[in-house]
């Protein structure tokens, strides 16, 4: 793995502030190439004004998360869907 990014587990803390479940275990589908995989497999660029998670297959942006002082912005336009495991 290149040293300019880390894996999708780096999203866990910030996503946990917004969602009640651990979204890194959710399965997402990339809007760019259709790649399906867990959020934890995304490539996260965090030396940036926000977190930018890219598809490990086509490098398109799948998810962006900007954390302000008292707000967060979540952009999922690069995600077709998120399949979230729930207790049965």
């Amino acid at each position, binding site marked *: 793995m*290149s040293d*300019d990014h880390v894996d999708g587990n780096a999203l866990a803390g910030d996503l946990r502030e917004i969602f009640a479940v651990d979204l890194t275990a959710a399965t997402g589908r990339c809007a760019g190439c259709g790649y399906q995989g867990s959020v934890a497999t995304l490539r996260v*660029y965090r*030396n*940036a*004004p*926000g977190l*930018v998670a*890219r598809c490990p297959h086509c*490098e398109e*942006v799948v998810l*962006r998360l*900007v954390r*302000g*002082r008292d*707000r*967060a*912005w979540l*952009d999922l336009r690069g995600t077709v869907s998120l399949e979230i495991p729930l207790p049965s």
Partner: protein
Amino acid sequence: MAIVSPGFTGRRRSPDAQLPPGQYLAEDFPVLTAGPTPRVTTDRWEFTVSTEVGQRYNWSWQQLMELPAEKITTDIHCVTKWSKLGTRWKGVSLDVLLEDVETAADYALVQSYGGYTTNLPLEDLLDGQAWVAYRYDDDDLTPEHGGPARLLVPHLYFWKSAKWVRGIQLLLEDEPGFWESAGYHDYGDPWREQRYQGD
């Protein structure tokens, strides 16, 4: 009554006075990136200005090098709160590049190799406020800092100074760029601390 005029002392302002609100002084030059670093060689580099009616103006690297360049010494301010004072650049003023472009546009969407975009009013690119910069500190601009060429718009937060710049789309309506569409301020004036939407 004593009249104190700092202008007569000849002293340089303290670093704190040169920092916009909420910023700290960085001695190094942090590398921020929202994706993989594009490796663009100068033989395939091209810069394109397109207007609201679809007119396109193109420059090759060689043509850029033939344009009059300026040396710029300026402070830069990143929205992640670091500032760097007295940075030295060389580049071509946007006044030169846009001189013969016919447009009625009020807005610009700057585009980069790698897909990054950022938006700003066209007037902020003019009147000696913006450059396509290709040298930093007497060296060619490295890919990590946006080389072979990046936009330099130092009066706004540094995310507006797009790395790996490849063109400018001139628009009649404002269109948010990469960070502006994800919570960051549309304009981004560091002296008014316009970091996020609503600031």
